[in-house]
C-alpha cells in the first residue's frame, strides 16, 4: 500500500458551473442551518421560507439555462453526469419540491417540539407557545439536494452518498407530524430501519461490482462487462443486491412493505414530497444503473424485472382495494404506478426504444408527480378533530359539502386511473407504447388489467364522495392557505393541460432522452 500512497496525487478539477443547481440547493440548506443557529425564534420562519423557495427557483432557473445551453457531460471527474435526463429530472424534482414546500409551509402540519413526549405537559406548552421546528426547511433542502444528486451520480459511491443524503432528512421529517405523533414516529422508525437495510444491500452490491470491475464508475463497470472475466458470480450477486437496494427505494414489490406505513404516518406534505420527488430520483438512478452500468447484462435482468413489474402492479392494485385509509390507498396506488413505470424500464434493446422508453418514463414521472402532489394537498385540507380525516368513510358525500374540492380530487383520481383527457392517460400511453414496441405485450396486458383493477378503487372513492350521502358531523374542509390553494390549482391545471396538450412536455422529455445517459 505504502508504494501506492507515495504515488503523486494531482488535484482533481470540478466543474462548479455545471453542478451549480445542486450546489445552490445545498448551500441554501447550510445557510438555513446557520439561520437556525443565529436568528431569534420569531424571525426564523420568515427567513427560512424565502431562502428555501428562492434557492430552489434559482436552481430551477440554472437547470433550465443549462438545458438551453445543451450541457451534456460527466462533471467532477466523471462522478456526476450532467446530461439530458439528469437535467430533466432536476427540473421535475425542483418544480415538485417547490410545490411541496408551499404545502410544508402551513405549519400546523408539523410538531411543535419533536423532543416533547406526546401528550406530555411540555408538548402542550410548546404548542401553546406556537413553537414550530423551522429546521424542516433546511432538512427539505438537503433532501432535495440528495434527490438531485442521486439520479445524476455516475458512480456508485456518489450514488450511495446521495442516497443517504436524500434519505436521512426524510427519515427525520417523517417523524415530525403534529397530530397522530405515535403513528408518525413509528413511520419514521420503520422507514429508517428498512431504508438503512436497503441501503446496506445497495452498498454490498456496490462492493461486489467493485470487486468485479475494479471500479465503481458506471461506465467502467460497463466496460468490464463487455469483457466478462471469470468473476461472474461477483457480477451477478452484485447486480442482484444492487437491484434489491434500488427496487427498495422505488418501492417495487416484494420490497414495497415500507411505503404504505410511511406514507400514512408521515406528515402529508412530506408524503407528497416523497411520493413525487423521491420516486423520480430513485427511478432516475435505477435507469442509470441498469442501462449504463448493466446495459450489457440486460438478457439477465430483463426477465427478473418482468417478474418484479408484474408482481408490483398486482400487489399495488390488489392490496389497494382493501384499504380504508386514504393515504394508505394512495401509497398502494403509487406502488401500482411504480409497476407501470417498470414496464417501460423493461423496454431496452434498440437505441430508439431506449429513447422512447426513457422519454416515456420521464413524462410519466412528471404527470404522476403533479397529480400525486395535488392529491395529497387535497388530503391535507379535509380535516377532522384529530387532524386529517384519513378514514375513507369520513369522505362520504364530500361532493355535496364542497363540490369544487371533491371535483378536483376526482380529477386527480381519474388521472391516476388513466382516463383520457387527463395527464395520467398520456403517461400510461407513454410507458406502455415502448413496452409493446419492445415486445412486452404480455406485460402491457397485465398492466392494463391491473390498471382496470386500480380504476376500481379510484372509482370507489369517487362514488363515496359523490354518490353516497354525507356522514353526519363529517370532516371540516379547512380553509386552504394561500400555499395549499396554489398547489391544488397548479396541480389540477397541470393534470388537465398535460391531459389535453402534452406535446411541449413530451418534446422536452424526448429531447432530454435523446442523448440517453452519458457514459
Amino acid at each position, binding site marked *: 500500500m505504502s508504494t501506492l500512497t507515495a504515488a503523486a496525487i494531482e488535484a482533481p478539477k470540478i466543474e462548479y458551473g455545471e453542478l451549480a443547481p445542486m450546489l445552490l440547493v445545498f448551500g441554501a440548506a447550510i445557510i438555513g442551518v446557520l439561520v437556525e443557529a443565529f436568528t431569534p425564534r420569531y424571525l426564523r420562519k420568515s427567513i427560512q421560507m424565502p431562502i428555501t423557495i428562492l434557492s430552489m427557483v434559482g436552481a430551477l432557473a440554472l437547470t433550465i439555462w443549462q438545458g438551453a445551453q445543451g450541457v451534456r457531460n460527466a462533471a467532477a471527474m466523471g462522478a456526476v453526469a450532467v446530461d439530458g435526463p439528469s437535467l430533466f429530472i432536476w427540473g421535475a424534482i425542483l418544480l415538485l419540491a417547490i410545490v411541496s414546500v408551499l404545502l410544508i409551509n402551513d405549519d400546523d402540519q408539523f410538531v411543535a417540539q419533536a423532543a416533547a413526549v406526546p401528550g406530555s405537559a411540555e408538548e402542550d406548552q410548546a404548542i401553546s407557545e406556537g413553537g414550530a421546528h423551522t429546521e424542516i426547511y433546511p432538512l427539505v433542502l438537503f433532501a432535495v439536494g440528495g434527490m438531485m444528486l442521486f439520479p445524476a451520480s455516475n458512480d456508485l459511491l456518489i450514488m450511495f452518498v446521495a442516497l443517504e443524503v436524500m434519505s436521512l432528512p426524510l427519515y427525520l421529517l417523517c417523524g415530525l407530524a403534529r397530530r397522530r405523533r405515535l403513528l408518525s414516529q413509528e413511520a419514521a422508525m420503520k422507514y429508517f430501519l428498512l431504508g438503512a437495510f436497503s441501503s446496506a444491500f445497495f452498498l454490498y452490491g456496490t462492493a461486489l461490482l467493485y470487486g468485479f470491475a475494479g471500479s465503481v464508475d458506471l461506465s467502467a463497470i460497463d466496460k468490464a462487462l463487455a469483457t466478462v472475466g471469470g468473476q461472474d458470480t461477483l457480477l451477478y450477486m452484485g447486480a442482484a443486491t444492487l437491484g434489491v437496494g434500488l427496487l427498495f427505494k422505488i418501492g417495487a414489490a416484494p420490497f414495497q412493505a415500507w411505503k404504505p406505513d410511511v406514507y400514512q404516518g408521515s406528515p402529508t406534505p412530506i408524503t407528497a414530497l416523497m411520493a413525487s420527488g423521491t420516486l423520480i430520483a430513485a427511478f432516475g438512478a435505477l435507469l442509470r444503473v441498469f442501462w449504463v452500468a448493466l446495459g450489457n447484462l440486460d438478457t439477465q435482468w430483463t426477465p427478473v424485472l418482468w417478474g418484479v413489474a408484474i408482481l408490483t402492479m398486482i400487489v399495488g392494485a390488489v392490496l389497494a382495494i382493501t384499504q380504508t385509509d386514504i393515504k394508505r390507498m394512495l401509497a398502494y396506488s403509487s406502488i401500482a404506478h411504480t409497476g407501470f413505470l417498470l414496464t417501460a424500464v423493461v423496454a431496452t434493446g434498440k437505441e430508439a426504444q431506449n429513447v422512447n422508453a426513457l422519454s416515456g418514463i420521464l413524462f410519466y414521472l412528471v404527470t404522476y408527480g403533479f397529480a400525486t402532489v395535488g392529491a395529497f394537498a387535497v388530503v391535507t385540507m379535509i380535516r377532522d378533530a384529530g387532524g386529517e380525516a384519513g378514514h375513507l368513510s369520513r369522505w362520504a358525500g364530500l361532493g355535496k359539502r364542497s363540490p369544487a374540492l371533491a371535483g378536483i380530487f376526482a380529477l386527480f383520481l381519474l388521472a391516476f386511473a388513466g*382516463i383520457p383527457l387527463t395527464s395520467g392517460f398520456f403517461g400510461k*400511453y407513454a410507458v406502455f407504447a415502448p413496452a409493446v414496441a419492445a415486445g412486452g405485450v404480455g406485460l402491457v396486458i397485465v398492466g392494463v*388489467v391491473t390498471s382496470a383493477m386500480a380504476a376500481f378503487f379510484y372509482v370507489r372513492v369517487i362514488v363515496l364522495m359523490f*354518490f353516497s350521502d354525507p356522514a353526519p358531523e363529517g370532516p371540516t374542509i379547512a380553509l386552504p392557505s394561500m400555499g395549499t390553494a396554489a398547489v391544488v390549482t397548479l396541480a389540477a391545471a397541470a393534470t388537465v393541460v398535460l391531459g389535453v396538450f402534452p406535446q411541449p412536455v413530451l418534446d422536452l422529455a424526448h429531447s432530454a432522452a435523446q442523448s440517453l445517459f452519458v457514459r
Partner: protein
Amino acid sequence: MPWLSILMGVPVVGALAVAAVPKGSDKLAKQLTLGVSLVVLVLTLAMAAQFDRSGARYQFSEVHDWIPSFGVHYAVAVDGIALVLIALAVVLVPIVVLASWHDADRPEAKRSVKTYFALILVLEAMMIGVFAATDVFLFYVFFEAMLIPMYFMIGSYGGAQRSYAAVKFLLYSLFGGLLMLVAVIALYAIAAKGTFLQPELLGAIKDPTTQKWLFLGFFIAFAVKAPVWPFHTWLPDAAAQAPAGAAVLLVGVLDKVGTYGMLRFCLELFPDAAKFFTPLILTLSVIGIVYGAIVAIGQTDMKRLIAYTSISHFGFITMGVFAMSADAGAGATLYMVNHGFSTGALFLLAGFLINRRGSQYIADYGGVQKVAPVLAGTFLVAGLSSLSLPGLSTFVSEFLVLIGTFENYVVPAVIALSGMVLAAVYILWMYQRMMGGPVQESVKALPDLNLREKFVVAPLIALLVVFGFFPKPLLDVVNPAVHQTLTTVHAPQFTPAIPVTAEKKGAGQ
C-alpha cells in the same frame, strides 16, 4: 368552414355557460341547455344539407397535429354512416333535455340541476366527436372520455341502485377500453406508419395472426360497449338505474359507438380477421337476439325489459355489420338510427309513466289506456316500432339486415327471424299488462301527457313513421359509405337496388 369543430365547440361552450349559471336559477340553465342543443341541431342539419352524397367519402374533414411525437392528430370528418349517427345524437339531445326537464330537480336528494344539463351537453360534444373522429387515437380518447359524464349522470341522478350500476358500467367499459388501448398501441407499433390516421392505416397490418389479435382487442371493447351477448350484463342495470334521459342517450347513442366502431375499425382495419371471426360473431349475435328477447319477456321492470329488447336489437345490428353484404351493412346502419329513435321513445315514455306512478314495475300498472289514452297510444306506437312492425322505420332496417344476411349466411338469418316473433310477444304482452285490462287503483289519477311531453314524443313518432315509409334519404347517404367499407373488406358487391324495393315493400303493407 370547420363544421365539425363548431359542432363540438358549441355544446362545450354551452356546457361551460350552463355550469356558470348562478345557483337557484335552474330554469335558466334548462332553457339555456335546450337552446344550445337546438342550435347544434340546426347546425347539424345545415351541415347535412351540404353533404355531397356522391362526393368524396369523407367530407368536412379537418386534420391538425395534436401530439406529433405519438403521431396523434385532431382529425375529424364524416362519411354517410357517421353523418346519420351524428344526426341521431343531435336530434335525441334536445328531446332528452326537454324530456328530463324535471328529472334532475328532485328535492329530496339535493343534486345540482345545472350540472346534469351541463353533463348532457358535454356528452353531446363527445358523441359528435367520437363519430367524427378519423384518427384512431382520437376516437379512443372520445370513446373513453365519454364514460365519465355518463358515469356521473347515472351515478348521481339515477335510481336506488345507481352507484352500483354506475360503477359496473364504468368498469366494464373501462376494461374493454383498456384492452383496446393495448390493441391501439400495438397497431401503431406494428403498422409503423408513425400516424394514427385511420385512412392511412388501412391495410397496414398484413400478418393474419397479428390482425386477429388486434381485431380481438378492438372487438371486445366494442362488444362490451354495444352489449353483444356475453358482455351485456351491465346494460340492464345501467339503463334501469339511469334517469330516463340518460338511459336514452346511453342505449340510443353511446352503445351505437360500439357497433359503429365494429363497422369503421374492425372491418376496415382488419378485413381478414373480420372474415375469420365472422361465424363466431354471427353466432354471438344470434344468441344475443334470441336470449335478449326471451329474457325480456321474463322482466317485471319495464326499463330492464326495454334494455333487454335493445340487447336483442343489437344482435341484429352486429349481425348486419358482419354479414358482409351491402344491404346488410346499410340495414345495420339504418338500424342504429331507428333503434335510437324507437328505444328512445320507449324509454322516455316509460320515464313519464314512472314519474307519474313512482314505480317501474309492470305489475304496478294496468288499464292506463283508459285514463291516459295519448300516453298509451304513443307507447303502443313506440312498442310496435320496437317489434319492427312494417310501416315503421325499424322494419326497413331489420328487413334489410335479414335479407343481407340471407345472401351470405342462411341459418343465422333464419334463427334471427324468431327474434321478431319473440319481440312481438314481449312488447305486446307488456302493453297488454300495463295499458290494457282493468284500471288499477294506483293509476286512477294518472294524468295524461302534458304539452312538454307531447313535444317530446311527437318528433320521435314522426321520425319513426316518416323513415318507415321513406327511408331513401338516409339510405342514399349511408349506402356509398357502406360500399366503400365493404370494398375495403373485399366483400362481394351488390348494386344498391334492394333499398328501393325494400321501400316499396315497406309502403306495400
